[in-house]
């Protein structure tokens, strides 16, 4: 039997790959409680990786999609609406399957895109890995959900603020950056916090279906399922992974709460919108 310190030493970075710690995962009756804590904890590295990158990139894209959806030209708003409906109306689980089976059809050597004077070769082999392909699916999904939130917020930007901006002679990008965007963020922030939590929880689906976990390096829930398969005892690993996720959720609430404070810093204390922890877990 390993001691607790040995378990942590062997497995706390195992999720990064075989080179980081013990080559093989613990098996059968050899599994100790500390193994489960260390491995599931190390899986969180990937949950944080997927969630953080998807939130940051998705935020930028969602702002663009929401603006397109809000545009008066149907050439912009229609495609944005279709994109939002497609990704919000279908299960993320199926989206993972669809994109994975689409990515494996791409030629391994890369795709040549002739641009007239130069040919661009796009590397496609990475797309079939969860770290790239799965991340892309998550980004597209969170972009659609956040764009819908931002779109709703754009429509409720106070009329008086827009009139004030006009009166100051602000136009175009200046008006957007100084008046529209801060208002949009402030209005959407409480729901956007829930979206971030929601996204973090759905990172558990990445390795669950289509995308393979190479060298048995997966996220926290992947290891929890591995332990339940090995020990046939759901009463240790599942509560453990749930506890890790509760901690992660609280961290997100704290971080987004700080940003919320900054967004509302000019308002009197009573008027500030308070964050409410009301996540929805399934998408």
């Amino acid at each position: 039997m390993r001691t607790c310190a040995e378990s942590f030493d062997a497995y706390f970075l195992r999720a990064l790959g075989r080179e980081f710690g013990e080559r093989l995962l613990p098996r059968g009756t050899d599994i100790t409680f500390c193994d489960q804590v260390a491995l599931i904890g190390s899986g969180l590295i990937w949950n944080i990786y997927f969630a953080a990158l998807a939130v940051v990139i998705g935020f930028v894209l969602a702002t663009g999609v929401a603006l397109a959806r809000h545009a008066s030209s149907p050439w912009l708003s229609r495609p944005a609406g279709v994109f939002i409906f497609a990704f919000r109306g279908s299960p993320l689980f199926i989206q993972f399957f669809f994109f994975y089976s689409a990515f494996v059809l791409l030629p391994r050597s890369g795709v040549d895109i002739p641009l007239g004077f130069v040919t661009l070769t796009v590397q496609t082999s990475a797309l079939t890995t969860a770290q790239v392909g799965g991340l892309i699916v998550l980004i597209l999904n969170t972009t659609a959900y956040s764009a819908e939130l931002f779109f709703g917020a754009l429509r409720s930007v106070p009329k008086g603020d827009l009139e004030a901006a006009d009166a100051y002679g602000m136009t175009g990008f200046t008006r957007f950056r100084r008046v529209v965007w801060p208002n949009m963020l402030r209005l959407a922030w409480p729901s956007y916090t829930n979206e971030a939590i929601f996204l973090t929880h759905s990172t558990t689906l990445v390795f669950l279906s289509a995308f393979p976990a190479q060298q048995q390096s997966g996220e926290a829930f992947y290891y929890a399922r591995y332990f339940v398969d090995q020990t046939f005892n759901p009463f240790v690993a599942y509560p453990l992974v749930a506890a890790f996720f509760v901690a992660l959720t609280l961290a997100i609430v704290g971080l987004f709460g700080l940003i919320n404070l900054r967004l509302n810093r000019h308002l009197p204390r009573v008027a500030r919108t308070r964050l409410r922890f009301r996540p929805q877990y399934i998408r």
Partner: protein
Amino acid sequence: MFSFCSDPSVLSGLPWFVCYLTSATHLDFYRAFGVVMLLLVVTAPAALAIGMGGAMAIRARFAPLSLLGKAYVNIARGVPDIVFFLFVPIALGQGIEYVLHHINCPDWDQPIRQGNDFLVCREAKMPPIGAPAWVRDAYAFGMAVLAFALVFGAFVANTLHGAMQAVPHAQIETAEAYGMTRAQAFRRIVLPQMWVYALPGLSNIWQILIKATPLLFLLGIQDVVYWARELGGQKTTLYSYPHPDWRMWYFLALLGFYLFLTWLSERGFGWLTLRLSHGQATAEGERMRRAAA
């Protein structure tokens, strides 16, 4: 299915596709869509019933019951659903076998958990040893329904509790002034009126439920995802209908199916909102009253 399908190797073009799409395995695939609909049809009322129970428990005057209701709602909502979907069927299955074991084999002296094995006596196995395949399928499906109903029941309980609170309080006081008991006031005043307040929340939960149905696949049930993977994979000439890797198209069809379901329920809930707003003390109800006058 059709008589000209007896020898697929000589077919090509449209007849090939017609025969391919009506092969026995494809009929199983279409039946799996029925399984998804069945799950929705069974789970929705079950979740509604559990949710109603949960909401009533939260409202109860008896403190332990109210506390129990709150604990159920917060635990089921605070833990990722996917953990619940995998946890409930295994935990419940082991729980049932554990109880049956103690009823049927009281003189069994070995521990139930030995290392990584969960050992119960022969009579305690669920589904029973030697049960026909459909019993085992029904048992697995029933477990899945229970897991779904427990998770979604918590969401529903939260929504219904909010809706009960939203019914104008003055109306309840009026009912009590007329001499109705608490139960009567609840049945005659709160229950008929709460639905319009609950509807936006319930419609959200329904949309989430639709999008959770592919998770059946994880519980080992041969659902649409299972068949899409089976049928779409590359088939060599050993098979009657050889084709390259078509999984992408199968999953595209599934995406289309779910989008259609979402669109349909959006329309359905829109219609229902209009129906329920009739004569209600809400903005929409007021608008309808004015339009009629």
